[in-house]
């Protein structure tokens, strides 16, 4: 058994953009296999929070633990506890990420996109990783597109390749940063289907999303963020049907009436 209680834990995470405080003392504990959807109005700091988890944004202060190990500890914009580089990288690789705009590598084929990181970062044998990559592409339903370049794919297909690419590093946590926001409405379904399958397979997921239907159906916990704080959290049923916070109420009202 693994010797940790929470696979991901953040303590007092805050973040400034200049004078502007975009994250205010965020505490979150995520159990293994939990699916968490983060919702909230734009500018609430949802994406910033997600991106600071894997260091795409540098937090100003706070602690981040991955699988019980300290991953990052910063205070007032400076790293206070130095963590062994190799250890930190290993922890970083426990997190896979999908972006709103996919960010596939346009100069590589779909298959090469999936294979690049395992080959360069983990130094795995191309022959071995090739089979795994094809299997992942099969999972997301794009095996026959393996030798196409990303620009020949629809947005939904590109996002599914991006999911396969992140999964190729065998992460234990998947971060989704508005994965369906840049997609045409009819393409959203396929991506959500893949994410649903992933959730059912026991993957720990943090999902910034505007797909309330998906959050209701799949999430174990929904977090409502506003103005850089977690305004309210709870099971989907409670958040969507019995919100307590005024901001949550007005947000849901504006979304559901749109």
């Amino acid at each position, binding site marked *: 058994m693994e010797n940790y209680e929470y696979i991901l834990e953040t303590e007092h995470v805050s973040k400034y953009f200049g004078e502007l405080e975009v994250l205010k003392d965020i505490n979150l504990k995520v159990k293994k296999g939990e699916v968490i959807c983060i919702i909230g109005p734009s500018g609430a700091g949802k994406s910033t929070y997600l991106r600071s988890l894997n260091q795409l944004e540098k937090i100003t202060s706070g602690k981040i633990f991955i699988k019980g190990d300290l991953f990052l500890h910063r205070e007032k914009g400076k790293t206070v506890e130095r963590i062994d580089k190799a250890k930190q990288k290993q922890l970083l690789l426990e997190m896979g990420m999908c972006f709103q705009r996919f960010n596939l590598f346009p100069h590589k084929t779909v298959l090469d996109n999936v294979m*690049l*990181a395992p080959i360069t970062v983990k130094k795995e044998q191309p022959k071995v990783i090739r089979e795994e990559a094809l299997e992942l592409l099969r999972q997301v339903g794009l095996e026959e597109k393996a030798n196409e370049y990303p620009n020949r794919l629809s947005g939904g297909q590109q996002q599914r390749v991006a999911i396969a690419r992140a999964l190729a590093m065998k992460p234990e946590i998947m971060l989704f940063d508005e994965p369906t926001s840049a997609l045409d409405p009819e393409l959203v379904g396929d991506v959500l289907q893949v994410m649903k399958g992933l959730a059912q397979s026991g993957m720990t997921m943090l999902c910034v999303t505007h797909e309330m239907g998906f959050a209701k159906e799949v999430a174990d916990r929904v977090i409502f963020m506003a103005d850089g704080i977690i305004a309210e959290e709870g099971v989907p049923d409670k958040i969507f049907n019995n919100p307590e916070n005024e901001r949550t109420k007005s947000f849901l009202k504006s979304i559901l009436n749109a």
Partner: protein
Amino acid sequence: MKILKKVVNVKGWQKATKRNIVILVLVIIAAAVLSVMKPEKEAMLSCTSEEVQNMIAQDENSSRKRVTITYNSLVVINYCSVSSSGAREISERFIGFFGKTYPANEGAAKVIGQMVNYTYRMLGCGENVMHGAKLTILLTALTILIGVVLGIFLALGKISKKKLLSKLCSGYIFFFRGTPLLIQLFVIYFSVPSMLGFAWRDLFSAGDNQAVYKGAFVAALIAFALNSGAYCAEIVRAAIQSIDKGQYEASKALGMSYGQTMSKVIIPQSIRRMIPPVCNEFIMVLKDASLVFAISLMDITTISKNIMTSEGSYLVFIPALIIYLVITACFTYVFDKIEKKFSVYE
């Protein structure tokens, strides 16, 4: 390998490419026919006057030659001149074309003959690689090759977060773009050896009678490559900075280091964007290469200038221009094709 496959895949070619290839093949066939048809040296010499033929026959048995024979074979056309100096000055010129030899001692035929002769010399035909167009192209190609590699490192240095490295690279670029290439060439060729106490020809063995030229070539190459590196650095920097930020984020999220991100993701994508400006830079360097006349390398410009002074022919610069134009046209076409091949994913 992929590029090779694409080139071989005839079905995938565009209509215009096919047409151009057909035209090119026809031109080559026509040129081949004409080059086979044109009269050889002996045939042309047999058209000379009886007096000259006697002199040539006498020359064969004596060690002291009285007649100078120039024979230039330029693809489809031949030029032959026979001259002797001394008591009896003779000068007979001929052009050979399509199986016939025509006298070229006056009028339009004389001009054509001269042009053939000048072009032949400016292209560096019948000489080693240190002559004429061959030297120009070799110098340019090597300059760009070194310049792009140097430019990539300079650009990476300039955008680096390490302050000192960044300042150094910026300073280098500022210096080489801010001073004239000709003076840089002089500094490398004259000043540096005099300061350090060596000569460029010493790089090659003393017995090599081309050592002076080879030494000058090395000096020119160094000066041009250093200069071109600065220009290429700006090209590379612009290309790297035009790559979407998301590419860095995706690479970082996948655990790739800065070096891996650069070498596997960013630079391969930048190269596609670098091709048009590097093509431009290539053509700039090709033209700037004419500056080597200042250090007596025998490039197109130097040869045309020498012809002008030694033979008093002011028309020589026109074929020189045309040769430069043809070379740039060829390279522009090739670069165009490369650019299209690389654009599959954009």
